[in-house]
């Protein structure tokens, strides 16, 4: 098995019908890293929750049809890291993202139960990344 340190990426339009595509791609990647089937199913749910949050936030900001969500998955220090990133139009979006995650409390409780770490990170170009981290077994 390779080390998979380089990111595997997929960019999806900010549309609900594409969330299923993202979770399948990332689930396949997690399978290559050695996660068992049950954990791969959990990771699918986590990716779905995070992509849904991103898409709903972009819809709230308006003109979602020309927006996109970029998902990068990679292995780092024996952990799977999944970055769900999207460009925002407002400098305060990181706070809005945190608030939005709290509002979706069912989704957030699922995310935090399944993943070892969930954080919101601002990128230098005013984007936001929802970072999901899971320890790789073995």
């Amino acid at each position, binding site marked *: 098995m390779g080390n998979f340190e380089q990111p595997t990426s997929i960019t999806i339009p900010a549309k609900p019908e594409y969330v299923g595509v993202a979770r399948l791609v990332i689930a396949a990647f997690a399978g290559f890293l050695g996660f068992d089937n049950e954990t791969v199913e959990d990771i699918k749910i986590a990716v779905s*929750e995070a992509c849904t949050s991103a898409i709903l936030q972009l819809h709230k900001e308006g003109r979602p049809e020309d927006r996109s969500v970029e998902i990068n998955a990679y292995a780092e220090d024996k952990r799977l890291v999944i970055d769900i990133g999207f460009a925002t139009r407002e400098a305060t979006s990181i706070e809005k993202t945190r608030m939005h995650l709290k509002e979706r409390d069912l989704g957030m409780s699922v995310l935090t139960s399944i993943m070892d770490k969930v954080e919101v990170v601002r990128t230098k170009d005013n984007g936001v990344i929802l970072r999901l981290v899971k320890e790789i077994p073995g």
Partner: protein
Amino acid sequence: MDLRIESKEVEGIGVIALEGEVDVYTAPKLKSRLIDLVDEGKYDIIIDLQKVEFMDSSGLGVLVGGLKRVKSHQGSISLVVTQENILKIFRITGLVKVFPIFSSEEEAVSNIKGS
């Protein structure tokens, strides 16, 4: 993957059987079917999730919304779930305490009829 929804009536109870995936894309379809059932006067509803392969909080949100709707008519929503991966998401969110969960449609029907 899409979500298929089949509806039927068993002893006056509305039964919805789902097949496929319930997420942000497909959940609105389930929401609208639940609203239709309540509008038709079905306040005790069984939702069979045995053929659901994937469900996230978008699906859970619709179920909770449906429950609020039927409760305003003194109704109920019972679930049929047998797959561990689907049961797990109900456990994580504490919804196992909110929805009665059964392992067959017959069990759910007799529980409603007995109550």
